[in-house]
């Protein structure tokens, strides 16, 4: 049965074309907080939908209200039972919701802030078994998330006035043991929480704190630095291979811990503790899944939104005008909530004046075959299929074609690489059509003695055809940054040097490795390159989600048919981080030596 849809949700006085509200999605305290904070500058419509995690975060709201001195009135709350659809683009998103009385409504907003809570589902099975020989309920055991919540005022206060009331009651003088479950990377959020909490307990309250773990995922994200800091601060770390036992002896909890580095016949340690925190697992609610599907947002392996997107700061998502704060990104984001909402406020304030991307992709509607490739692949959901009218000498032509929303496009160029009709152009100096503009990149010489010089002008470069010619296509976020550093360190080449040139290297920036297609590589080779080298960001670090992966897959095929036509070893793919210019240099030398010896 078709339902009647009422458009125009917003209270009457509002001119919707001028003052679109910001939609805040969520019913819990994180959503309340985001709505309240943003309401000072924007009209807010909060869609109360989704789970409510039981978090004692009222202080956040109060503190915020205190600072602002008032809560703005333009904060409308609408209770919804379902989110049915999500359409539109930055500037005007349209969320179709169902109200409690069954009515269906379309809400419009210039931006959407997703602030859905997650829910603690269980203490892990391996987790807190209760003391082996005691039946009395213990106040001395709490979950890690509880501990976090209690410490959050301290964790979050960067203003130099730590709110310690919550702390002093129960934490001073404690011996705290934090038990992390077995497992490595998946446990990273808990690891980070544990270390953050331990650091606060050590530094602010001077507790003795020990973290028991099977494997610390210090490699993940920002954990390494924190880990070092907490070690120096005196937090103790105990690695176990067998989950520690907890016993109660003379009214004192003890953690029985066996040091795996000691021989078996050594007795285990008994560590007296007054407080034990065990890790809790949080699961993304099904609402998060719904949002991810409807709005086209990526989720991480744990099911939370964007849990591994390195470049998303201030709650940004892959789509412009959609933000995500708090627990929808995983438990660990809770502590970053104020910071994230502040980021959203800044970003919203800047609006469209934000720095334009270098490359703006545009579809030629006459060439577009509406194959949907770009529509499916765009990591930022910037592409719509629209009806378009085009005047030609025969009059008007009506057809459907892809259209790229100029505000939503973030200039990765993936669609340009994948359009089979070559219908998309980018306003980048490096278009597939115009070949690579020799003036846009950097040029280097490697001399016979192995030294590297910069070419001062393009003439320098082309006039000295070295025996080996290398073209490097480097992502602006990684490889090109590395090369940029080199240009500050390397001397300029002077023809008077009269040294033999071993190789010439041309480095071109690309918006994202995802922009590079087989045609670009072939054109470089046609232009006489001996080898094309592609530098992209590391796996999982692509600003455009999967630009590097798509490029890699694409170029693996390119390599195959290069082999078919008898060209071997003419294409290479490297990943590196922007600061790693020395590594880049090493590769370069290795490759040139290989080429020379052929």
């Amino acid at each position, binding site marked *: 049965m078709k339902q009647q849809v009422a458009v125009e949700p917003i209270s009457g006085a509002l001119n919707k074309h001028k003052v679109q509200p910001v939609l805040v999605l969520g019913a819990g305290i994180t959503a309340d907080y985001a709505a309240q904070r943003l309401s000072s500058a924007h009209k807010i419509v909060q869609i109360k939908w989704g789970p409510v995690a039981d978090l004692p975060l009222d202080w956040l709201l109060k503190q915020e209200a205190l600072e602002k001195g008032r809560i703005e009135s333009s904060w409308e709350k609408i209770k919804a039972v379902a989110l049915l659809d999500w359409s539109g683009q930055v500037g005007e998103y349209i969320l179709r919701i169902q109200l409690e009385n069954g009515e269906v409504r379309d809400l419009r907003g210039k931006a959407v802030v997703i602030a859905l809570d997650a829910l603690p589902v269980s203490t892990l099975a391996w987790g807190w078994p209760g003391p082996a020989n005691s039946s009395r309920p213990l106040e001395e055991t709490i979950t890690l998330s509880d501990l976090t919540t209690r410490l959050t005022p301290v964790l979050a206060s960067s203003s130099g006035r730590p709110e310690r009331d919550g702390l002093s009651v129960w934490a001073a003088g404690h011996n705290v043991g934090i038990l992390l479950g077995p497992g490595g990377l998946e446990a990273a959020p808990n690891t980070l929480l544990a270390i953050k909490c331990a650091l606060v307990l050590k530094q602010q309250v001077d507790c003795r704190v020990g973290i028991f773990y099977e494997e610390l995922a210090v490699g993940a994200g920002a954990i390494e630095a924190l880990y070092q800091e907490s070690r120096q601060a005196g937090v103790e770390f105990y690695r176990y291979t067998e989950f520690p036992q907890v016993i109660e002896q003379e009214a004192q909890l003890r953690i029985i811990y066996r040091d795996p580095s000691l021989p078996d016949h050594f007795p285990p340690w008994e560590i007296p503790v007054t407080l034990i925190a065990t890790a809790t697992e949080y699961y993304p609610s099904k609402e998060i899944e719904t949002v991810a599907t409807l709005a086209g947002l990526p989720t991480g392996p744990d099911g939370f939104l964007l849990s591994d997107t390195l470049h998303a700061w201030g709650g940004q998502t892959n789509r412009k005008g959609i933000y995500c704060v708090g627990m929808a990104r995983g438990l660990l984001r809770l502590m970053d909530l104020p910071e994230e909402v502040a980021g959203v406020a800044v970003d919203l304030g800047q609006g469209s004046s934000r720095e334009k991307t270098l490359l703006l992709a545009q579809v030629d509607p006459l060439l577009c075959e509406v194959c949907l*490739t770009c529509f499916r692949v765009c990591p930022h959901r910037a592409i719509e299929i629209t009806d378009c009218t085009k005047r030609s000498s025969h009059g008007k032509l009506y057809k459907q074609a892809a259209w790229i929303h100029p505000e939503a496009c973030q200039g990765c160029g993936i669609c340009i690489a994948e359009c*089979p009709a070559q219908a998309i152009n980018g306003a980048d100096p490096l278009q597939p059509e115009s070949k690579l503009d020799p003036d846009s990149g950097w040029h280097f010489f490697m001399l016979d003695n192995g030294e590297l010089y910069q070419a001062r002008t393009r003439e320098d470069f082309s006039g000295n055809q070295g025996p080996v010619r290398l073209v490097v296509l480097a992502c602006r976020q990684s490889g090109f940054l590395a090369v940029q550093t080199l240009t500050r360190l390397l001397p300029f080449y002077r023809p008077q040097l009269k040294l033999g040139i071993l190789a010439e290297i041309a480095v071109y920036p690309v918006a994202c490795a995802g922009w590079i297609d087989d045609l670009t590589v072939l054109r470089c080779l046609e232009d006489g390159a001996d080898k094309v080298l592609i530098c992209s960001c590391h796996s999982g670090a692509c600003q455009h989600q999967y630009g590097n992966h798509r490029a890699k897959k694409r170029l693996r095929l390119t390599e195959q*048919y290069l082999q078919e036509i008898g060209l071997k070893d003419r294409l290479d793919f490297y990943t590196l981080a922007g600061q790693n210019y020395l590594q880049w240099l090493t590769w370069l030398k290795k490759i040139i030596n290989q080429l020379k010896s052929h």
Partner: protein
Amino acid sequence: MIIAERKSITDIWQMIEPFKRIALIGCRGCVTVCMAGGAKEVAVLAAALRLAAHERGRELVVFEEMVERQCEYEFIRPLQRSYPQEQAVEGLVSLACGIGVQALAECFPHLPVLPGLNTSFLGMPERSGVWVERCHACGQCILDSTGAICPIARCAKNLLNGPCGGSQEGMCEIGNGVECAWHLIYERLARLNRLDSLQSLALPKNWAKDRDGGPRRLIREDWEDEV
């Protein structure tokens, strides 16, 4: 749409061995959409062939052309003007389906026309980058009785009255991740509460309307030109 894939470059290279000047003709229809013969594929193949020729020290000129639909004379004819005396090029490589190759050949009676693609089947993208067969063009559609799932195109044995013994947990015994069409049909009819339509026996199909009746031709008299 018609799904096709490009022949290996080695094959194409062997086909064009005798020629010094060739033109690659792409098609803006189905094969653009299935990433086999659009403007991009034409450009890539041209570049690859030029490189191969250069590498082997062979002289080869490659032209690139696009046609709106290579299965229509009207779209191909303008090309005749590009290659008037049929001297400009020695051979044409069509990056269209087999229909396009033949239409092109009919328009260029004195030029060799070579297929650059293998025409695969009638299908659709299941998801980005994965195409699946959906119709066999059997000439007499039975989808009404099979829950809109085609057992001719999707059952390896073209069975008309339920699955064979090789249907296991929804999958066909031929493997390759092929789902058993009859399992799908059963599930769908059950969902629609129409399982009774499986009660009646499907009689042998009239295969004369399929390929078995020889090349097919369809005439709409109302549309037919006066000759």
